[in-house]
């Protein structure tokens, strides 16, 4: 299967500033890709180049085989885009805003209106909510309206820029659930975000950006494996004598660090909780808690940059 989105040596400079440098990216059908990194690391610029809204300085981009710099209309017809903190016409209702989007996409009013109802209902904005002026919408509702606008276009690729920024935890969770649903329907989703821990749960693959370069790319597990070394972290709370010696003796444990009174953190090459519990009990110590920590992208990120700084 060929890549739906593909870039080769994509570079964008604004004067002396390089916003994106030599980006090689491939997105295949049915995956959710996370474009992650701090603000100003080139995520939005990359997206704008993919949509043909800004021209690359050098390199090429292909979206479904089309060059966005040459055929922006064709590309934009096939890609849905939810901009960073999307705005709508506040004095118009949600329904009217979608009707405008539909007309801009060349849909006739007769075809558009059942489609608008359908996407509004799906996003939980149906009936009288859709008739309210968007000015009265909450941030979460605006984001959902933005997603409705993408669904309305019936596209195969959706690009979401900071979709969970400014949402409360529950709304963010809800929104990510909707993204999962889209993926299940076979849509390719590209999410740009600096809230690593929020989006890591929905991404099949992620690319970490720093200063215009994609410095790491792969699955969340793969990245934590390669960056964090022993990918498994186990938190142990145990009372007894020489607990850290006992723990250090467990095979596959690479490192033990004390985290406070009776608390330890293990770095292990595999999930060795069973071995830990057996040994602690056998040595006569009390085992109070034992938890496996999921590797988090935040940690991968900060660890990676610590290393980079060390090397420099």
């Amino acid at each position, binding site marked *: 299967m060929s890549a739906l989105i593909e870039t080769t040596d994509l570079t964008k400079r604004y004067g002396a500033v390089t916003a994106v440098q030599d980006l090689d990216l491939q997105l295949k059908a049915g995956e959710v890709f996370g474009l992650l990194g701090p603000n100003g690391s080139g995520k*939005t610029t990359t997206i704008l180049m993919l949509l043909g*809204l800004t021209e690359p300085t050098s390199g090429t981009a292909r979206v479904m085989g089309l060059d966005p710099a040459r055929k922006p209309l064709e590309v*934009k017809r096939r890609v849905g885009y939810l*901009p960073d903190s*999307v705005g709508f016409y506040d004095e118009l209702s949600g329904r009217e805003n979608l009707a405008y989007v539909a*007309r801009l996409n060349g849909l006739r009013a007769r075809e558009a209106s059942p489609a608008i109802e359908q996407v509004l209902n799906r996003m939980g904005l149906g009936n009288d909510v859709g008739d309210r002026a968007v000015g009265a919408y909450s941030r979460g509702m605006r984001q959902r309206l*933005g997603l409705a606008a993408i669904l309305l276009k019936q596209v195969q690729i959706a690009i979401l820029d900071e979709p969970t920024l400014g949402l409360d935890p529950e709304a963010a969770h809800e929104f990510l659930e909707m993204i999962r649903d889209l993926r299940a329907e076979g849509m390719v989703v590209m999410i740009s975000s600096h809230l690593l821990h929020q989006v890591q749960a929905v991404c099949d693959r992620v690319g970490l950006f720093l200063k215009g370069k994609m410095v790491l790319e792969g699955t969340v597990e793969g990245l934590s494996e390669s960056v964090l070394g022993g990918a498994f972290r186990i938190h142990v709370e145990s009372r007894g004598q020489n607990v850290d010696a006992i723990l250090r003796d467990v095979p596959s444990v690479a490192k033990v660090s004390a985290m406070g009174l009776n608390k330890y953190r293990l770095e292990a090459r595999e999930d060795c909780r069973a071995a830990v519990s057996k040994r602690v009990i056998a040595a006569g110590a009390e085992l109070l808690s034992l938890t496996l920590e999921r590797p988090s992208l935040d940690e991968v990120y900060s660890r990676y940059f610590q290393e980079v700084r060390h090397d420099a």
Partner: protein
Amino acid sequence: MREGSPWTGLGAVVLKELADHLTSVRMRILEILMLLAALGAVYTATQEIRKTIGEDPFVFLKLFTTAQEPLPAFAAFLGFLIPLTAIALGFDAVNGEYNRRTMSLVLSQPIYRDALLLGKFLAGIGTIAITLTALWVLLTGLGLWFLGVAPSTEEVGRALLFLFATLAYAGVWLALAILFSAHFRQPATSALAALSVWLLFTVFWTIVTDLFAKGLYRADPNNPLAQLAQARIGLFVSRLSPNTLYAELLVAFLNPQVRSLGPILVTQLEGAVMGTPLPLFQSFLIAWPQIVALVGTVIALFIGAYVIFQRQEVRA
């Protein structure tokens, strides 16, 4: 380089903007103002015209130009209200989209920026055209009612040309307002900038004209040729203002007796029967340079706005 028609989505933009304008409070206020101006001007004009009825073959055109103290004529009212309306419709055309953060939403749909900018311009002109046409019909109807005289075909033709000239004049201010809205980030700044230009031409341009004609060029009072040259300089400078061009168009279209818009020499009047009206087409020819200048200004200003807008980043 790029492929696909720049007009894609133009209709959608025009329809949306037109609907916005026609339902906006901004436009309501201006409509009320224009309506009041029209009613007041026509009423006083008819009072004045009744006294002299039967003396003028173009009594209907007098509706637009007759003034009675303290009210100005309808045409003068329009010269004042049209720039205001056009600026009100255009001053936040581009920066308003940025401020509402709708720019990236709209531009990520399959349209070019061309369609967005042109759509906004056409919708503004359309709004003014609808309002003006309604006023024009109202005025004609009131004229029929008060004067009891039906307009001749030629008068209707001249009144239509007047309508067109007013639209071209509106286009200048609309294009200028859109240009400023693309250049300045704050709508308040762009509105103020457009209003300043309007003030410059409305209030201060006569001073500027005098400065150039009388201050910089000292004409010998005994030399008629030097005086003619001085008058021509003054005319040239004053015609740099769209207000002058519009006023000259009105004179040419609404006063059929006018045979020249500049200084005229006695020798050129040889054989002319003074006070006889010109045919419509001849009046049109007299006004042709002014029409070209106004429409050309609209196009130049729009191109300026287009260039500024094309170079802008989508991100606010």
